[in-house]
C-alpha cells in the first residue's frame, strides 16, 4: 500500500487549523442566525470540523481509533438529526414559526 503523499507535504497543524476554522464558522452560525433549521445545520458543520481533525490525527499517527470515533460521531449525528427535526416539525405546528427566540417557551 502506498504512503499517502499528503503526510510528507502538509503538516498536521494545517489540518487542525482547517478543522478549527470549520468549527468556528459553525459556531458563528449558531450565534447569529435565527432560523432554527439553519442553526441545526451549523451544528452539523461543527461536528464535521471535529471529524476532520480526528481523521487527520488518526492518519498522521497511524492509529485507527480516531477513524472509528468519527464513525460513531456520524452515527450519533444521524440519530440526533432525526429526533431534532421531528421536534422542530412539532414545534412549528404549535408556534407557526421557526424563530429561535420563540423556542424559549420549551422551558418548564
Amino acid at each position, binding site marked *: *500500500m*502506498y*504512503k*499517502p503523499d*499528503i503526510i510528507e*507535504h*502538509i503538516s*498536521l*497543524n*494545517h489540518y*487542525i*487549523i*482547517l478543522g*478549527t*476554522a*470549520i468549527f*468556528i464558522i*459553525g*459556531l*458563528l*452560525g449558531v*450565534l*447569529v*442566525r*435565527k*432560523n432554527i*433549521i439553519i442553526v441545526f*445545520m*451549523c451544528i*452539523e*458543520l461543527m461536528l*464535521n470540523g471535529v*471529524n*476532520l481533525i480526528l*481523521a487527520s490525527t*488518526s*492518519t*498522521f*499517527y*497511524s*492509529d*485507527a*481509533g480516531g*477513524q*472509528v470515533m468519527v*464513525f*460513531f460521531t456520524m*452515527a*450519533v*449525528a*444521524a*440519530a*440526533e*438529526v*432525526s*429526533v431534532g*427535526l*421531528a421536534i422542530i416539525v412539532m414545534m*412549528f405546528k404549535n408556534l407557526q414559526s*421557526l424563530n429561535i427566540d420563540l423556542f424559549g417557551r420549551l422551558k418548564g
Partner: protein
Amino acid sequence: MNIEYIFYFLSALTIICATMVVVSKHPIRSVLFLVATFFCISAHYILLNAQFLALVNIVVYAGAIMVLFLFVIMFLNLNDQMEHNKSPMFWLAAIVSAGSIFLMVVSAIGTTQLSIPEGNTENYTLGLVENIGMKLYTDYLFPMEICSVLFLVAMIGAVLLSRKENKMISNSQIF
C-alpha cells in the same frame, strides 16, 4: 499537479462553502452549500487515505441527513417566514468573539510541538474498509452494539414525536 495545491484549493473551497451556509438567506441554499461542504470534506478524507470515512460521509451526511433537511424545509413551506435578522452590532459581536476563539486556538497550536512517533507510521492501510470493519467488530464491539440500540431509540422517538396529538388523546380515552 502538486498535492499541496490540491490541499489548499480544497481547503479554500470548504471554507467558502461553509461560510455560504451561514450567510445565505434562504434555507434551501444553505442545505445545498452544506452538501457541497460535505463533498469537500470527503475529498479531504480521500487525500488522507481514509476511504471508508469518505464513503460513509457521502452516504450518511450528503445522502441521508441532507435529504431529511430538504424534506423538512419543503414540508414546512417557509415562503412567508422571512427571517428577522439580528442587528449589525450583534453580527459584529459574534464575529469578534468567534474570531478571538479561533485566534486563541491557532496561537495555542503554533506554540505546541506535536510529536509524530517515527516507528509507528508504517501502517498506511488503516483507513480501508476491511481494517475499520475489523476494528469495529473486535476492539469496538460494545460501542457498536450500543449504536444500534441508539438508532432504535431514535427511530421510535422520531415516530412518537411526529404523531398527531388528538390521536394520542383519543387512544388514552379508549383504553
